[in-house]
């Protein structure tokens, strides 16, 4: 069944017709020509499609497009609305990618991690569960970024790329 919706992607309202079975990811990639978010599994297993939905990271392949109406969808491209995000720069500086396919998802995921740390959200490796802010140690970054697979395996470069921005944002000692 087709339905008319308007998605707000990277700050722009985008009216479109979708099949009610269309995922947010396919709505962007196959209907809007917004291909910053990537498809690597279509099952929420790889993280390549990670976007921010009202600021929180989600696998956009697991979100039905019709449910995303009225929410702010931000891809890695959208993070660059006012010039490159610091994560864009540190990923380039640390060579935190190779083929680049998982990279937009890594970056939106990292943006989500920074926000979660600033709000004190604990992870499986957090020792102080009631701290106001989480200290994004290397172990915290590794744990929190493990939903984003990188088959080129730039992990050891992704950690310092995220860590540098975490220091700048005051969520890493």
């Amino acid at each position: 069944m087709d339905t008319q919706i308007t998605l707000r992607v990277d700050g722009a309202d985008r009216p479109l017709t979708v099949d009610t079975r269309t995922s947010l990811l396919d709505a962007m990639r196959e209907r809007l020509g917004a291909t910053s978010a990537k498809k690597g599994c279509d099952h929420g297993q790889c993280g390549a499609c990670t976007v921010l939905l009202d600021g929180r990271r989600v696998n956009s392949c697991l979100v039905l497009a019709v449910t995303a109406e009225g929410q702010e969808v931000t891809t890695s491209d959208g993070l660059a609305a006012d010039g490159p995000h610091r994560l864009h720069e540190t990923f380039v500086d640390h060579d935190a990618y190779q083929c680049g396919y998982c990279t937009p998802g890594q970056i939106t995921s990292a943006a989500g991690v920074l926000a979660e740390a600033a709000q004190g959200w604990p992870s499986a490796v957090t020792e102080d569960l009631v701290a106001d802010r989480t200290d994004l140690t290397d172990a915290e970054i590794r744990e929190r970024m493990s939903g984003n697979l990188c088959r080129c395996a730039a992990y050891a470069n992704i950690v310092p790329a995220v860590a540098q921005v975490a220091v700048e944002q005051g969520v890493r000692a």
Partner: protein
Amino acid sequence: MTATTERAVGSDVRRIDGPAKVRGLAPYAYEHEVDGSAVFVALVQSTVAKGRITSIDVSAAQAVPGVLAVLTHEDAPRLGDVAEELLVLQSDRVQYAGQPVAVVVAETSEVARDAVGRVVVRYDAQRPDVDLRADRDDLYPPEKLMGGFETDSVIGDVDAALAAAPVSVDVTYETPNEHNNPIEMHATVARWDGDVLRMWDANQGPHNLVPVITEAFGITADQLHITSPYVGGAFGSKAFTHVHQLIAGMAAKVTGRTVKVELTRQQMFSLVGHRTPTIQRLRLGALPDGTMTAISHEVVEHTSQNAEFAEQTATATRLMYAAPARRTTHRLAKLDVPAPTIMRAPGEAPGMYALESAVDELAEALGMDPVELRLRNEPERDPERDVPWSTRNLVACLRQGAERFGWADRDPRPGVRADGRWLVGTGVAASTYPTRRRPSQARIEAVPGKPFVVSIDASDIGTGAWTALTQIAADALGVPMDDVDLRIGDSRLPKASGAGGSTGITSWGPAIIAAAQELRDREVPPGGLTVTGSSGPGDEAEQYSSHAFGAHFAEVRVDRDSGEVRVPRMTAVFAAGRIINPTTARSQFLGGMTMGLSMALHEEAVLDATHGHYANHDLAEYHVATNADVGEVDISWVDEVDELHNPLGAKGIGEVGIVGSAAAIGNAYAHATGRRVRDLPLTPDKFFR
């Protein structure tokens, strides 16, 4: 041309494609033709692994609104004379589970997938045989191995030497079925512009596909245009033509539309190849001082009914260590499985896992340090080809690696160190990978006042070729990198070898240098000047044995309660010729080492014995290394320039990082636990076996 003294080669240069990639703006195959005109393909796959299709009912699928066509073997376009494994929708025969038996083309991807579920296929099925065992009575020697290597090699009386050896090991290692799993799923966008087939495709070099696709569709090379500027990883699975590319051409022909084929992650397990499982018997004999007297490496692996893929698993054993008596053999079982393919360091990755594990066991049997044992058996010349090395710096890698890792402090006794509930150990293994150069051509267009346009059908699958080739071109032209406008990844560019076998830089770089030399001492006229250059292997390949080498060191911790394995620390030192770009080279080594970690700890595709399909065909069940798997990684290289094979003095670096990595981890596991697990991966259950 502007003279410049600054050299780009050897400098830490950030990826020129980086700013586009981090924002997600570099267009991969599926991201072309996004104006809404394209239609979508979905595949019906065989649920049986062996047999014949007795009927296909497509009526319900065809009735779904939005379905444009359903193709089956009864009505699909006929393909030309291509390899049997590529003859998709050409007959009623089923040779592996997951084989495409029908193709749906629809206006949207949702409708296409819906219709797939409505196609009813009936089979006359037979029970498949997917059981790889070393005691099968139908194992056979292939005529040649991949790469043209001899199937077997024998020097001296190996059995007598083994029987006479004062110290020996006789061990069998097994590696499982592994899948490349690049994160970009294989994708092709195709359209027929009259009699020209236009494709945007994820591959390791458009020219790799041209012979097969032109033959399949009965067209000339001029009638095929493939564009692939950015590729989201490959690791071998995108090197050759697979069925989806032919399906794209067929679907575009039948519908007259621009079609998009994107394999699902699950489909990638059966349609784009895998690394064959191996069973490897290693027998090593030595004198009490560690001098090896015999090396025997016998390999059993599988291939498919529809293709003979003979992986060259033991070829590295032919050159690693000196020993007067030596033998390698390869035997195949032809099973009802999808066709295997190359996966990062085919041959070397599984073969060196087994050899380097066995060498570790020999060191233990000798009571000798495993680094020292390797140093003791360093061959002065290639021991089987009897030619000199172009350069061989394994000794330097082992020594420097041992120093950086802190190997000297190691207590050799296995299974005696614990940190709380963690058993702790360290391991070492060597690495090697061949150095080669393949034929390639390049073109340079010079126009006064404009950047030099450097064109070559090279491919950047994440290697950094965009950047490294720009560096090479800049130096060859004597200009800053900004004055080079590189064009790669297009079948209409000068023909170049594919990105595979760690041959990219050693093949493409010299072609660009050759073209640049044509410009030397020539005045560029106002209207511009176009020159070409080519490069290829010469006699040096016969006269010398040329390989990159490396040494891996790893620390492993094993949870004595759960069997969980962690790798907090890896060190590797490589001898891989001149390094063009230290930043991207380090990433290549890092990626290889981490994929070796992944091979050691996680990767295994399980074939269902009854139905012949891959039971764990997705990334939730086929595990690959994640961020949290990787600890401290220390990567360095020795100064080495090897100009016998190319003017850059470079060797390939894409694969030497994975080779030996899993063995170092396995050896550290044995050192930690005092127990040797000889079948990868080192999953927790095996600790309790």
